[in-house]
């Protein structure tokens, strides 16, 4: 029994998502092979060979795998699927694009975004935007899975897998990538952001708000929010306001800086996955909802934090 992990990489290097996927694969029990399909992707393949737990790296190196379009990639996976009980890809744009195509070509179901492995055929995955967790069991001979990377540890280093070339398939010529525009500037919008850095009256004035919070937000790729007191005091415009009478947000991470945690503020952010509070008052109510509370002077803590995550 062997397991195939479709590597996420950019030819030059392996993406971290692959490591989490390898960890998920390791929970299934079986020899783990990693498929690196790319163009001039030897460096990525070499990295994959060093991942702990990987038994074999299979490399398909051809120009038409350069951008890992789903059509060519899926055909390659299917051509090499024999002998595998499981085929895994991370739940990334590439993984989500290719895995269902592979599954359909194999005439098996695909299981998306697994967060836990119960057994070789039983998995846990979120449904209804994470408001419920379903445990599903597959009756198919081959299980094609995508893996929610945040739910699994990253596999360590120290492996020494054999690297083996795989014959490239034909270029199907169905899709070609014309260009990519990778954004790295503007902050995400408050409602859609995965991370929000939010500031309150503790910041003292508008200048401090920007001087302290912007570097932290930039380092985290976060959106900026504010308490009403901060908005009222003119630190930021009112569309920054989070709370009962402002925006309701539920990011993965909400960092409340100098915010006391009034009930009206909490109403707008209490569904955030992880809440961090930075406040000098140990009795501030915000600490009652915070997963991680740091009692301290924000003027010291915030720059330090920005540096640590930058």
């Amino acid at each position, binding site marked *: 029994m062997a397991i195939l992990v479709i590597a996420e990489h950019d030819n030059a290097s392996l993406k971290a998502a692959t490591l989490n996927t390898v960890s998920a694969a390791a929970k299934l029990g079986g020899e783990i092979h990693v498929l690196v399909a790319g163009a001039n992707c030897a460096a990525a393949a070499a990295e994959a060979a060093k991942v702990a737990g990987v038994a074999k790296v299979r490399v398909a190196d051809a120009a038409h795998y350069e*951008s890992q379009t789903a059509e060519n990639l899926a055909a390659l996976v299917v051509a090499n699927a024999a002998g595998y009980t499981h085929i895994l890809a991370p739940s*990334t*744009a*590439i993984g*989500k*694009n290719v*895995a*269902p*195509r592979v*599954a*359909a070509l194999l005439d*098996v*179901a*695909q*299981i*998306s*975004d697994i967060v836990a492995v119960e057994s070789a055929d*039983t998995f846990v*995955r*979120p*449904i*209804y935007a994470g*408001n*419920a967790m*379903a*445990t*599903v*069991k*597959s*009756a198919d001979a081959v299980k094609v899975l995508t893996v929610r990377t*945040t739910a699994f540890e990253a596999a360590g280093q120290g492996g020494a897998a054999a690297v083996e070339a795989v014959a490239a398939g034909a270029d199907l010529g*169905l*899709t*070609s*990538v*014309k*260009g*990519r*525009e*990778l*954004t790295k500037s503007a902050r995400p919008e408050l409602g859609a952001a*995965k*991370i929000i850095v939010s500031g309150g009256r503790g910041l003292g004035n508008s200048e401090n708000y920007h001087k302290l919070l912007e570097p932290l937000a930039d380092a985290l790729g976060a959106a900026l929010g504010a308490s009403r007191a901060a908005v009222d005091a003119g630190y930021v415009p009112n569309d920054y306001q989070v709370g009962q009478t402002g925006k309701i947000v539920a990011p993965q*991470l909400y960092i409340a800086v100098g915010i006391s945690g009034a009930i009206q503020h909490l109403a707008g952010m209490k569904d955030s*996955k*992880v*809440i*961090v509070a930075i406040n000098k008052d140990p009795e501030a109510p915000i*600490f*009652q*909802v*915070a*997963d*991680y*509370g*740091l*009692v*301290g002077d924000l003027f010291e803590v915030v720059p*330090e*934090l920005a540096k640590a995550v930058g």
Partner: protein
Amino acid sequence: MKILVPVKRVVDYNVKVRVKADGTGVDIANVKMSMNPFDEIAVEEAVRLKEAGVASEVVAVSCGVAACQETIRAAMAIGADRGILVESDAELQPLAVAKLLKALCDKEQPTVVICGKQAIDDDSNQTGQMLAALMGWPQATFASKVQLGDGVATVTREIDGGLETVETKLPAVVTTDLRLNEPRYATLPNIMKAKKKPLDTVKPADLGVDVAPRLATLKVAEPPKRSAGVRVADVAQLVDKLKNEAKVI
């Protein structure tokens, strides 16, 4: 050019679903149902293509219970020309739906199928890709811009960290992301007209498709609750927790 748009009937996005006490699923009895929002975007895109003179006909398809007719009518109210209901009371998983759609594509011969990228109930994000696989067509998923040319589609896709522009041969499957467009409000005259547009009903058996589920749901549970918070001593510990315990940065 004909465009086929699959539309799914799902629990309305405003409804916060509750897990049933017996853990067999979520309680959707008497809950408001609506068209999957991504599918609404797909219908809107198809109708815009028709209004721009690029497409000549927009066909909305829904697979599921009889009430999916409402979803098809909603698509017609936005501007789809006719509808096909593949009626089945069985649980239809993405592979089965893809097979049903394939059978319809074989019959209807659309140039483009525009699907929502995922349904907000099972969050699978599979059907469009599977259909493309079964048809042997290219796929342009997570589209934020679609241009149809002669035999090719130019699609801007939302990928991790940015955008990617691809050219695909037609026929193809496109799946929609949120930023592709903002669906219009159906107008009252169009809601009324939708009533009169043709809607055919077929059964999976008529299409020769076996829709038996491949996955069994053993249990549905509430997501884990927030664990009691902790105080961290300093920035270093905070960063460590965020990286390694919460895994949010």
